[in-house]
């Protein structure tokens, strides 16, 4: 019995999953030993991250959003958020921030159980989220370390406008690189950056192939619940590494094999047997009840064929690849192109394209309380996409890592009602199609 066959029974993971786990474990071990090994540590954010640049300076990235979501999945976020609120943080604000602050106050213990190292630099890539700016102001107060500010302009007109790339490049040259040189004592090595960018592009090709495999019927992957695992290495500390290249090559092989065998996506309870609904999802998932949330879909035979959340760390499917021949320009274009840096009309276009290109039966918006960048305007987006696609959408409300805002019964009721509606709609459409031939022969 192969590992994959065992997976179908829900007992064993695919080799790519095990590889990713080893990569993550290794990264946290390096972080735990950073002070001893002398490696410098830079905290930064997922959207608009400059991982290749950081790795070229041999620094270790820490991504506070990832720490927060992992705290959520490990059921620690409630405690951390409560601690931050005791320190004066409002109930109304982003729970990623409060979870991170609370984790810091509780000793900054990472997912492996060892304390995370303090940052030598905060790289504030201000891309698509105003809260990032406040977040690192707060962390600077705690850590008393420098901040490298990278302001990434917003694509308000649906495209990268003249001067934007140059502006970002100039900031990388005058702000980011000098600060990295200062903390590491190394000079900027452009050849090294080019080399890493080349590896990034290879991995990006394979990620796109994996995500686009969802156009098959049945889809071999779930692009949202499974997708958050697939994007992990490329969106975090591994873009530009040989590890990432090998991981994505392996993931692609596994996906292609699933297509060849006509298999559906892997879920926590094994391979999905019947694909009843194909959905597009907008918005981040809830992390505190991630598996329960997922089960509300896979138990109904619903598979997410495309999602916007898996584009927060880069929009590769639209052709962007890191280009080693233009190292800083390509990093700037990458920062500018992340999903949450797109205008609302551009986001509506993208979701509508997904519904059409992936032949989805419907789309769902998971609106999270914490994230104004995602959530403000989603009700307008819902109506726009419905109008353009002629398909009804579903709207649910949860949060990222605050368990107080996940009401399982409410969410389940809404999702089930939505599926019933899709089913009914399908019956009506099928009925209409079946009636057509008889109508043709009926006497006038």
């Amino acid at each position, binding site marked *: 019995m192969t590992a994959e066959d065992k997976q179908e029974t829900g007992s064993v993971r695919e080799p790519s999953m095990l590889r990713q786990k080893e990569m993550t474990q290794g990264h946290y071990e390096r972080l735990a030993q950073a002070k001893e090994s002398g490696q410098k540590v830079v905290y930064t954010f997922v959207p608009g991250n400059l991982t290749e640049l950081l790795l070229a300076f041999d620094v270790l990235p820490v991504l506070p959003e990832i720490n927060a979501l992992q705290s959520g999945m490990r059921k620690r976020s409630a405690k951390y958020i409560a601690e931050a609120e005791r*320190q*004066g*943080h*409002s109930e*109304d*604000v*982003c729970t990623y*921030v409060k979870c991170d602050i609370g984790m810091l106050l509780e000793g900054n213990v990472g997912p492996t159980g060892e304390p995370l190292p303090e940052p030598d630099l905060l790289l*504030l890539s*201000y891309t698509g*989220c*105003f*809260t990032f*700016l*406040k*977040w690192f*102001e*707060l962390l*600077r*107060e705690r850590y008393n370390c*420098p*901040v490298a*500010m*990278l*302001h990434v*302009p*917003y694509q*308000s*007109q649906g495209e990268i*406008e*003249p*001067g934007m790339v140059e*502006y970002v490049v*100039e*900031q990388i040259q*005058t*702000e980011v690189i000098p600060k990295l040189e200062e903390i590491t004592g190394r000079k900027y090595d452009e050849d090294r950056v080019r080399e890493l960018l080349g590896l990034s592009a290879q991995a990006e090709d394979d990620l796109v192939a994996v995500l686009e495999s969802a156009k098959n019927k049945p889809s071999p992957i779930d692009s949202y619940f499974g997708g958050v695992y697939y994007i992990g290495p490329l969106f975090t500390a591994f873009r530009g590494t040989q590890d990432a290249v090998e991981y994505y090559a392996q993931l692609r092989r596994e996906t292609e094999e699933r297509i060849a065998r006509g298999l559906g996506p892997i879920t926590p309870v094994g391979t999905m047997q019947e694909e009843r609904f194909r959905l597009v999802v907008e918005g981040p998932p809830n992390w505190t009840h991630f598996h329960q949330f997922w089960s509300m879909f896979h138990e109904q035979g619903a598979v997410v064929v495309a999602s916007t959340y898996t584009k927060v760390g880069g929009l590769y499917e639209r052709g962007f690849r890191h280009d080693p021949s233009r190292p800083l320009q390509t990093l700037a274009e990458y920062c500018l192109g992340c999903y949450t840096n797109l*205008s*609302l*009309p551009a*986001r*509506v276009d993208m979701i509508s394209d997904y519904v059409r290109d992936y032949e989805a039966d419907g789309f769902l918006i998971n*609106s999270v*309380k914490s994230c*104004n*960048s995602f*959530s*403000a*305007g*989603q*009700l*307008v987006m819902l109506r*726009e996409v419905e109008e353009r696609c002629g398909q009804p959408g579903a709207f649910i*409300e949860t949060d990222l890592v605050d368990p107080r805002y996940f009401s399982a019964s409410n969410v389940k009721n809404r999702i089930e009602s939505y599926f019933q509606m899709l089913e009914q709609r399908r019956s009506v459409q099928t009925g209409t199609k079946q009636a057509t031939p008889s109508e043709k022969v009926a006497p006038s």
Partner: protein
Amino acid sequence: MSPDSHDPANGGAPLNPCGGCSGPEALAAPARGMQSSGHAPLDDILSRCEGLYFDYDHEAVAEWKRKHPTGAAVGYLPVYVPREVFHAAGVLPVGVLGAGEQLEIVRGDACFQSYICHLPRSVVELGASGRLDVLDGMVFPSTCDVIRNLSGIWQIMFPEKLTRYLDVPQTTDPRVGQQFFRQVISDLFRDLCKLTGRKPEECDISGSIRLYAENRRVIEELNALRKTSPWTVPGSEAYLVLRAAMVLPVEDHTQLVRDYLQAAQDAGRKPQDHARVSLCGVFCEQPPLGMLRTIERSGCAIVDDDSMQLLRWLPTDLEGGEDPIDALAQAWCLDISESASRFVPDGTCKGAGFVKTVQESGADGVVFAAPSFCDPALLDRPMLVDACEAAGINSTSFQYAENSGQMQPIREQTGTFADSIKLWSDE
């Protein structure tokens, strides 16, 4: 005319200034102990300002456009836009700061979840109900994610109107930020000129810069008097006078402030022994007028606040020089004013600028009043509270919405705060 609008024939004054939704606290104005002496010019000035405050239908803007048939009017949201280039392009800049506590929100609520602040709801309501039809466009500055996304909603809802997002630089290097912002302002200026048909190269931006600098100078005078003699210029009155800058042409507003200053000083109001407070957090979603009056009525003199920050930023002696757009961009980048919507660069302690402002205002304490669900204000607050504590400045905190109606809890809280300052501030 819509049922909840106001009758301009009634001197521009509201038919029902408090609409029964703000509770009895907001009904009587001005606050106790700050009564006008009955000096006619002062009453007239304040009545005019209040009329403009409640002018949700933007009758004053429509009137301006009737008088300036080749002109255009473009709205903007908080916190900062370079109004000078609007003026130079022949465009009346109109601050769209929400609809306070008067307007019933229906269509606005349909666009936003319960956990989004109130300002965008009332702005959408104003737009969807036709109250902003008089505007030829809207500019949304990079204040927060909600206003940023509101620019996209506007593009969808009003595709025929000019909609621009103003990306204000956050970079700490003035040279780099200045170059970028120069381009941003130039693009905006070009778009504004298209509305009026003016040729950009023929516009006198330097002249506009001088007019706005003059406006800042008289506002600085007003704020100075407010600090030294808050009974002469109560915070709620100053607010109304400054708020008028959102709809009046700059020349008119400068004269209005001058007239108010003269009238207020002539009114001969008696000194009061109120606790002097600085109000912080009201830079975007506006505090209800009733809330300001409630704070005053509870025994606080609001000697400073962070509302309408764009009236204070940039130097009062700014000149256009050879490249006026570059001068504006440079002035912004070199301005070191602290704000929740601006990144505080390395080398500057977060809150240090705020503490300095509080100390210069002579305030005895700070009232942190943040709008519910306002990320910039609420994420800033713990840092500012810490900075105040380190400097020995007392503070109290609460949240509000522009349509808050229940003022009694606020009155009790700020009243207790005022008492504590009076009783124990020397200890």
